[in-house]
C-alpha cells in the first residue's frame, strides 16, 4: 500500500463535518441518470478538475459506458471505477521516463510560485536521493525572501548535507553558479537549487529564473538536467497558467504536487498533465522529509473522490 492510500485510509476518526466522501454519496445512487451525472460533475469540479477537463472526462466516460456496461447491482461503484480509469488514462501519458540525473554532478532546479512548498520539497528530495546513495549539495538561490537561506540551511543541517549560500540580496544566478562549481570540484552527484517563489506573471522575476538556467549552462551545456515545478494542491485553475509560463520560461521537466495531505485534491493538475504533458514525479504529503511519494496515477485518481480524514 502506497503512502498516499495510507494517508487516505488511515488517520484517525472520521469527522462528519468535513462532508461525506463523494464515494459514499455516489454509492447511494442506484441508477445512471441525470442526478448521477451531475453528482459526478460536482465531484470533479470540487476536486478542482475545472469545467473543460470535467466535461472532457465525462464525455470519455459516456463513450466508455456505451461499450462497457456496468453491473446492475452496483451501478454507481462501477461508474466511479470507470471514471477513475478514465482519469488515470488522461494523466498516465505524463508519467514519462526515468529522471535525467545521471550526469555527475547533475543539477536539479526547483521553481514555483510563492509558498507552494519548494524548500520543503527540496528537503524531501534530498532525503530521497540520499537514500539512493547519492551525495547531494544544496544551493540557496532564494536570496530574496527573509530567512530563506536560513530555512534551507536548517534542512541541510538536519539531513547532513552542505548548503552553498550568499548574503541576502545576492544574485541568485551567482549562487547557483558557485554551487555548481563547488559540486564539480568536490565530486557531488547531485546539486539541488532552491529558488525564490515568484508569480509567473512577473516578467522581470521570470527573466531572473531564465538567467539562472543560462549561467548553469556555462559550466555544463546540458544543465539544469531536470527542472521541477512545485505546485500547491490547494491551487485552483490558476495552476494551469502557472505550469504554462514556467514551462515556457524555464523548461520545466517534472512536477511535484505538494500539500496533498490536506483536503484539497489537486485536480487542476489533470489539466496540466493533459495540456502540457509534463511528467508528475512526486507528491508531497506533509512537512517532514519523509513525506514524499512517487506519483501513482491510479492512487491519485482514486484519491480525487475521497478526502483524508482528521489527523490524530
Amino acid at each position, binding site marked *: 500500500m502506497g503512502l498516499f492510500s495510507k494517508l487516505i485510509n488511515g488517520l484517525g476518526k472520521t469527522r462528519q463535518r*468535513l*462532508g461525506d466522501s463523494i464515494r459514499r454519496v455516489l454509492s447511494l445512487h442506484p441508477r445512471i441518470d441525470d442526478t448521477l451525472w451531475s453528482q459526478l460533475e460536482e465531484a470533479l469540479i*470540487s476536486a478542482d478538475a475545472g469545467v473543460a477537463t470535467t466535461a472532457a472526462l465525462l464525455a470519455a466516460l459516456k463513450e466508455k459506458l456505451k461499450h462497457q456496461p456496468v453491473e446492475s447491482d452496483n451501478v454507481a461503484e462501477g461508474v466511479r471505477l470507470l471514471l477513475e480509469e478514465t482519469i488515470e488514462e488522461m494523466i498516465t501519458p505524463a508519467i514519462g521516463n526515468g529522471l535525467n540525473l545521471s550526469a555527475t554532478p547533475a543539477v536539479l532546479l526547483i521553481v514555483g510560485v510563492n509558498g507552494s512548498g519548494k524548500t520543503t520539497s527540496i528537503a524531501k528530495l534530498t532525503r530521497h536521493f540520499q537514500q539512493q546513495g547519492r551525495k547531494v549539495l544544496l544551493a540557496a538561490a532564494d536570496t530574496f525572501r527573509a530567512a530563506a537561506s536560513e530555512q534551507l540551511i536548517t534542512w541541510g543541517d538536519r539531513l547532513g548535507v552542505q548548503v552553498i549560500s550568499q548574503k541576502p540580496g545576492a544574485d541568485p544566478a551567482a549562487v547557483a553558479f558557485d554551487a555548481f562549481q563547488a559540486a564539480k570540484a568536490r565530486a557531488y552527484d547531485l546539486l539541488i537549487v532552491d529558488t525564490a517563489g515568484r508569480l509567473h*506573471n512577473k516578467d*522581470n522575476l521570470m527573466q531572473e529564473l531564465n538567467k539562472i538556467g543560462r549561467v548553469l549552462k556555462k559550466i555544463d551545456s546540458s544543465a539544469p538536467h531536470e527542472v521541477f515545478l512545485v505546485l500547491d494542491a*490547494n491551487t*485552483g485553475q490558476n495552476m494551469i497558467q502557472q505550469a504554462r509560463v514556467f514551462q515556457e520560461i524555464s523548461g520545466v521537466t517534472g512536477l511535484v504536487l505538494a*500539500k496533498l495531505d490536506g483536503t484539497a485534491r489537486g485536480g487542476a493538475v489533470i489539466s496540466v498533465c493533459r495540456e502540457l504533458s509534463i511528467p508528475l514525479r512526486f507528491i508531497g504529503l506533509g*512537512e517532514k522529509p519523509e513525506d514524499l511519494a512517487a506519483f501513482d496515477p491510479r492512487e491519485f485518481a482514486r484519491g480525487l473522490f475521497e478526502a483524508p480524514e482528521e*489527523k490524530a
Partner: protein
Amino acid sequence: MFDQLTQSFETFFRNLRGHGKLTEDNIKDSLREVRRILLESDVNFKVVKDFINNVQEKAAGQEVLRSITPGQQVIKIIHDELVRLLGEGFSRLDLSGMPPVPIMVVGLQGSGKTTLIAKLGLHLRRKGKFPLLAAADVYRPAAIDQLQQLGRQLDLPVWAPGVKDPVDICSGAMSEARRTTRDVVLLDTAGRLHIDEPMMQELERIRDTLKPPEILYIADGMAGQDAVRAASEFLERLDFTGIVLTKLDGDAKGGAALSIRAVTGKPIRFIGTGEKPDALEEFHPDRMASRILGMGDIVSLVEKAQESVDQETAEKFARKVARAEFDLDDFLEQLRQLKKMGPLDEILGMIPGLGKQMKGMQVDERDMKRTEAIICSMTPQERHKPGMINGSRRRRIAMGSGTRVQDVNQLLNQYEQIRNMMKRMGKMKGRTGGQFPFPMPKS
C-alpha cells in the same frame, strides 16, 4: 486582480446588452454562461449554485422581462448579487480593547501569514500605532528568523524568546508589550492543516489565553474549490473575525475570495498585492464588485492617487481624462505618476472601461524605460501633436532612442488608444446615465 473574471463578464455583458428582448430561455442560457465563468474562476461549486438560483429567481420576475432594457436589468441583478456575496461596506480592524490588543493571524501553510504580519505592522504604524510582532511559529525551519529579519527591515520590535510553546510565546508577548508600552501585538502562528487536530487545538489554546478581539484568516488568492472547506473549519474552531487574501498580484481569477466571504460571512479586511511590506490594501467590497463586473473603480483610483500624488496633480489628471486633452508629454508624465502609485496594470484596471483595452498593453518597467527613451527623442512639437509623426520621423526617433520603429509605432498606437478611450469616457460623463448600466459606486 480579478482581471480574467472581469474580462469574461465584459464579453458576457456585451452579448447580454445586445439582446432586444429577454425570454426565460435566453436568461437560462446566459446564466449557464455565468455559471461557467464563475466555476472557471474558482468560485466554489456550492456558492455558484446558490448564486445562479438567486439570480434566476429574481430575473424570472415579470418586471425584468417586460422592462425596456432587460439585459441591463439582469446585469444589475448579477451586480447586486455579487455585492451581497462580497459583503457591503468596508470594515475596519477592531482595535478598541484595552491595549495591548492582540491580533492573531492564522491559516494554511504558505498562505502568507508572516508576510502579512510585516505588512500589517507597517500599516498600523503608519496609522499611529506601536505594534509588537510575536514569533509563535516554532515549527517551520527559520520561521522565527524570517519574522526577525522582517522586523529589522521595518524597524519593528519582534518578540522571540526562544521558548518552545507557542502559547507561552504569545502570553509572553503580551507582557512584553505592556512593559514596553506597545499597543498592538501581532501574533504570527505556524501554518497548519484544518484537519490537523493537535495543531488546531494549539490555536484554540492561544485564543482562550489571549482572547484576541481580531483573528485574521489568511487565504491564498490562487486557491481553488477546497478554500471554502479549510476556511469553514478554521471558522468553526476559532470563529475568526476577518479574512485577508494574499497573492492577488498574480493572474488568478480570485473566485475563492468570493466563496470564502460568502460561506463564512466574515469580512475581507485586506488584500495582499506583492511580496514587499507595503503591498497591502484595504478591501472595499462594493468597489470590488464593480471592478469584477468591468466597471472600473474610480474611487480606489482617486484614493491611490491622493496617497502618492498631490491633490493638484490628481485633479489635473482627472480633468485631462475628462477632456481627452492629452499629449505625449502628459502620457509620459502620467506613466511616471502611475508608477509611483503601485503596480501599473492594477492601477489601470481601476479606470472604467480600461480593463479590456489594457489587455495586451502590459506596462512593465522595461516598457517604461523604452517609452521614456522614445518620448525623450521627440521634438517638443512632436510630443504635442503626435499626429505629425510620419514615417521618416518615426525612423529618426527610433534611432535616437535606440529602439525599433515597431516600438515607436506601438507606443503611438497605445497613446492613440488611450486618447480615444478618454474621449469616449469624457462623452459618457456628459450624458446622463451614459453607458453605465447603473451609477458608479460611491463610498
